[in-house]
């Protein structure tokens, strides 16, 4: 009977009880009446007939009692009794109870913890109304999403394409283009350092699409949203509380963003989750401020892709319909506008974007904890089998005295229920601790985990898992145990050797299963650890050690032109290079391993004629100290030098990959390259960012990783910011090579920056090692967890094999004693026992290898630099497991060495 059924019928019975008893009374009343009538007809006097009827009926109270037992609480009473009895037997066997409960708790705890991750990343509904209508819209080029580096957030269509989508579609209520920028923010009334914060540049429609209403104030108007002239801002409720003490008169107060005052017009509730924008956003200003040149809503803007996008579909519209709808419009745009050639559109629901690259990791972890649970359950089943075989005599005796099987099964059911409650409770505690730990160690790259917690969905899961596993794994062996053959059991029971061969086979099968599963975990963990090492040892193309990077931003108000920016950056670089402990420093926009600024190139003498043939390269803007600071080798030609200036002809360095791809058979040195789209794309005049500035290649440098750790380096071109005023933007990084620990230099660098501009925050200061660590955050997270699970799995399996071998040794005492008495050596006797343990381990290992081989597809996608079938890992894991099994077998096996044959035989 399933637990649900059981509970249901129990409740029904309690409800129905009162009615039943009234029913019975009426029935008995009628019976007495009829009987009395009959007696009268047979000649009994009227007054006596009633007594006669009562006599014939018997004790009415007893009848009622019996009937009540049939219908209502009888079964429940019995169950309670059984639960009490179970609790008593558990108390009497603290060893068994502890091991069983802990085993169960480990399995349930691990599952609950991971399920809470799955719940928060995959299952929990988004905090928005009708969230299934919310989608992100991405541009594709030749069918491949433009999403840079799988970040999931940007990669949206251009403003003009989105405007056309919004006007011509049939499936959307509303669409919005927006962006998030890092800006220097200071709060009025607070003296001191401005902070770098992420600011959302959004139209009012952004909030309307999400269905988020201001706590107070108003959304940006249409005019404010699209014209960068209205200095209004919305702040989060959290910021309102923390920075303004929840001032009720907050509206109309000002905050300074990049040195310009913005008037607060709204306080927004804290509902937009961090994962959605990849950053915690606490301030929003109108989207118009992202339109620095005022051309975003002109035809010029059609080329600029990579905005964030958001749309709300009409009620009833499906993602497929919306996709088809926009694809039709996109095809029309591609035919009309040259810059849209090859550009398509892809949709993803907002809830899908939450999981994006975490999904395979989570599935892997889910699989791993399921294995843990299965191992734990196998152990539990094993324990119960061992216990039941110890109890077989008791059970046989009870059966002989008239107890029946149903009664016995209920007893076991009660025990299992009790065990599952204890195990589940402990597991929940364990999960609570685990989740707290996960929340603490969760890498910065996984904002999805920030709202981790145990909620009712997780609790239901835990309850279901604990009941299901215990009942399944507790009752099945119990039922095989109740196939009692009385006579045989009683006969067998006269000796201490018990346990029919069926139960024995089952126990061995369970241990083999445990071994197989823990080997699968081991192999998975081994592969991930190696993949991790490969990733971290990935050559970046630079000298990674002793390198510090930091970000600063020069607001346009105080640094209005390229000259001012160049002066500041050169000055800052100079001052930092002069610091003791600094070997070299360079102001730049680029550092490995990921850099998304890509430009189209036109190579002199080799014009491209089709969009897909236009050469592209990652475009880095630096000063002359870049190569020496980063330790990038110069392969040919010359480095930048101080004589390259605004007045001299612009020069560039290109990477070997760029040469391989675009100068396969010519010397690139001295050749000229135009940076920007080719002429045939017919851009309106004045929109080409590089204008007339062609560059001359003066040097070839080694490749550096610029498309993420796991991707091969893309072509790279470096130019000097001093020579290109149009791309000399205010956002800059500084890279600093130090003689000792890079962290030690941070205060001095900050002081130098503030000496130049006291209001400029020095942000995102990290060593290069930390940058790489951050990039591998989710991988390390998964690796650490899987390694932990593998350890737990192996431990449980070791306990399992230990238990079975101990049991075997105890069982075979007499046999071994006889063998020894007849002249077998102790070593030979020991080998007899060890052989059995090792045979189980070997069988398990073989199955485990097969299992790992068949499940490789789950791990293939997240491995880097190692095959999912790596033979060394496979065999190494198997060898390790066999070693553990050998030790776990040898410990109880050594009991054989101390066996005194004479004594063992006398005990009989």
């Amino acid at each position, binding site marked *: 009977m399933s637990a649900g059924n059981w509970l249901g019928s129990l409740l029904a019975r309690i409800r129905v009880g009162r009615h*039943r008893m009234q*029913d*019975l009374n*009426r*029935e*008995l009343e*009628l*019976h007495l009446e*009829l*009987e009395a009538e*009959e007696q009268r007809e047979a000649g009994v006097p009227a007054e006596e007939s009633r007594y006669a009827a009562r006599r*014939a*009926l*018997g*004790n*009415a109270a*007893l*009848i009622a*009692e*019996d*009937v*009540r*037992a*049939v*219908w209502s609480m*009888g*079964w429940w*009473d*019995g169950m309670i*009794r059984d639960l009490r009895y179970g609790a008593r037997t558990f108390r009497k066997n603290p060893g068994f109870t502890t091991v069983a409960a802990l085993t169960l708790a480990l399995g349930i705890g691990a599952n609950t913890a991971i399920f809470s991750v799955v719940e928060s990343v995959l299952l929990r509904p988004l905090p928005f109304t009708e969230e299934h209508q919310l989608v992100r819209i991405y541009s594709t080029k030749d069918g491949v999403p433009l999403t840079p580096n799988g970040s999931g957030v940007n990669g949206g269509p251009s403003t003009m394409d989105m405007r056309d989508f919004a006007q011509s579609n049939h499936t959307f209520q509303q669409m919005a283009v927006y962006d998030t920028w890092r800006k220097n923010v200071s709060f009025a009334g607070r003296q001191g350092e401005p902070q770098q914060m992420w600011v959302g540049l959004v139209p009012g429609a952004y909030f309307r699409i999400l269905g988020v209403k201001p706590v107070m104030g108003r959304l940006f108007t249409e005019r404010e949203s699209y014209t960068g002239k209205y200095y209004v801002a919305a702040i989060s409720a959290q910021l309102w509380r923390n920075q303004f003490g929840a001032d009720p008169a907050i509206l109309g107060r000002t905050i300074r963003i990049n040195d310009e005052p913005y008037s607060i017009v709204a306080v927004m509730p804290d509902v937009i989750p961090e994962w959605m924008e990849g950053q915690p956003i606490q301030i929003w200003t109108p989207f118009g401020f992202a339109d620095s040149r005022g051309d975003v809503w002109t035809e010029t803007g059609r080329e600029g892709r990579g905005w964030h996008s958001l749309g709300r579909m009409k009620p009833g519209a499906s993602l497929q319909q919306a996709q088809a709808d926009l694809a039709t419009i996109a095809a029309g745009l591609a035919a009309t506008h040259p810059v849209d050639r090859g550009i398509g559109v892809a949709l993803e629901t907002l809830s899908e974007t939450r999981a994006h690259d975490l999904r395979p990791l989570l599935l892997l972890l889910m699989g791993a904890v399921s294995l843990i649970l299965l191992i734990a359950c196998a152990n539990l089943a094993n324990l119960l089998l061992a216990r039941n075989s110890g109890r077989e005599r008791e059970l046989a005796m009870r059966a002989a005295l*008239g107890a*029946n099987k*149903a*009664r016995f099964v209920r007893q076991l059911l009660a025990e299992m229920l009790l065990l599952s409650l204890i195990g589940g409770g402990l597991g929940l505690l364990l999960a609570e601790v685990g989740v707290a730990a996960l929340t603490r160690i969760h890498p910065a790259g996984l904002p999805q985990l920030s709202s981790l917690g145990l909620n009712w969905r997780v609790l239901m899961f835990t309850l279901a898992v604990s009941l299901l596993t215990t009942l399944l794994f507790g009752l099945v062996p119990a039922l095989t145990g109740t196939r009692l053959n009385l006579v045989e059991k009683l006969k067998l029971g006269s000796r201490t050797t018990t346990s029919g061969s069926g139960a024995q086979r089952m126990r061995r099968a369970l241990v083999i299963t445990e071994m197989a599963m823990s080997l699968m975990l081991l192999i998975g963990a081994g592969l991930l650890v190696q993949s991790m090492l490969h990733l971290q040892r990935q050559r970046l193309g630079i000298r990674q050690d002793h390198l510090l990077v930091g970000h600063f931003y020069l607001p346009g108000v105080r640094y209005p032109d390229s000259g001012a920016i160049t002066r500041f950056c050169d000055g800052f670089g100079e001052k930092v290079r002069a610091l003791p402990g600094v070997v070299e420093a360079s102001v730049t926009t680029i550092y490995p391993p990921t850099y998304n600024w890509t430009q189209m190139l036109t190579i002199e003498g080799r014009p491209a004629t089709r969009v897909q043939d236009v050469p592209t390269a990652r475009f880095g803007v630096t000063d002359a100290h870049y190569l020496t600071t980063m330790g990038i080798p110069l392969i040919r030609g010359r480095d930048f030098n101080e004589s390259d200036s605004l007045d001299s002809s612009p020069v560039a360095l290109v990477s070997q990959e760029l040469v391989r791809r675009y100068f396969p058979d010519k010397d690139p040195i001295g050749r000229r390259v135009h940076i920007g789209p080719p002429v045939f794309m017919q851009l309106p005049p004045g929109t080409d960012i590089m204008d007339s500035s062609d560059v001359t290649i003066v040097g070839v440098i080694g490749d550096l990783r610029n498309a993420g750790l796991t991707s091969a380096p893309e072509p790279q071109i470096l130019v000097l910011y001093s020579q290109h005023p149009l791309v000399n933007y205010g956002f800059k990084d500084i890279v600093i090579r130090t003689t000792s620990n890079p962290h030690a230099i941070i205060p001095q660098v900050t002081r130098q920056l503030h000496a130049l501009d006291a209001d400029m925050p020095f942000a995102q200061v990290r060593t290069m090692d930390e940058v790489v660590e951050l990039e591998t955050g989710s991988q390390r997270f998964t690796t650490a967890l899987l390694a932990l699970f593998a350890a737990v799995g192996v431990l449980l399996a070791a306990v399992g094999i230990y238990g079975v071998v101990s049991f075997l040794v105890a069982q075979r005492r007499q046999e071994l004693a006889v063998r020894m008495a007849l002249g077998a050596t102790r070593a030979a006797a020991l080998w007899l026992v060890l052989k059995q343990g090792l045979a189980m381990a070997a069988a398990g290992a073989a199955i485990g290898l097969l299992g790992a081989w068949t499940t490789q597809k789950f791990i293939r996608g997240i491995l880097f630099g190692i095959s999912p079938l790596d033979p060394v890992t496979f065999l190494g894991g198997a060898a390790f497991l066999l070693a553990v099994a050998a030790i776990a077998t040898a410990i109880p096996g050594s009991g054989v060495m101390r066996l005194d044959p004479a004594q063992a035989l006398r005990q009989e």
Partner: protein
Amino acid sequence: MPTIMAAKNSKTDLLQGTLDMLILRTLLFGPAHGHQIAKHIQRTTDDVLQVEHGSLYPALHRMERKGWIAAKWELSRERNREFKYYRLTPAGRRQLSHEESRWKQVAAAVARVMGPAGEGEI
């Protein structure tokens, strides 16, 4: 502890199984209320098997719960008042044939033991 609930099977409690069989058998002729069932058993066994009426009701309820019989308050046409009528369900029919065959086995075994020349102590 209400022993009846221990789901006793016919092997451990022959008498109870017999009573069940008799009740089922009675209901084979059509729906009947408790008193009718008691009287019918009494009459058809020529008063040899004295069923204590009281033991009938727990048995009826137990079989109702097992789904062998179904109960419903219905108007009796003769007496113009409501009685609780029990009727056989398909499961009850199956149970009856099961009980009967078991009964026949037991009876045959007993007959073999007692031999053809039994003095008839029963």
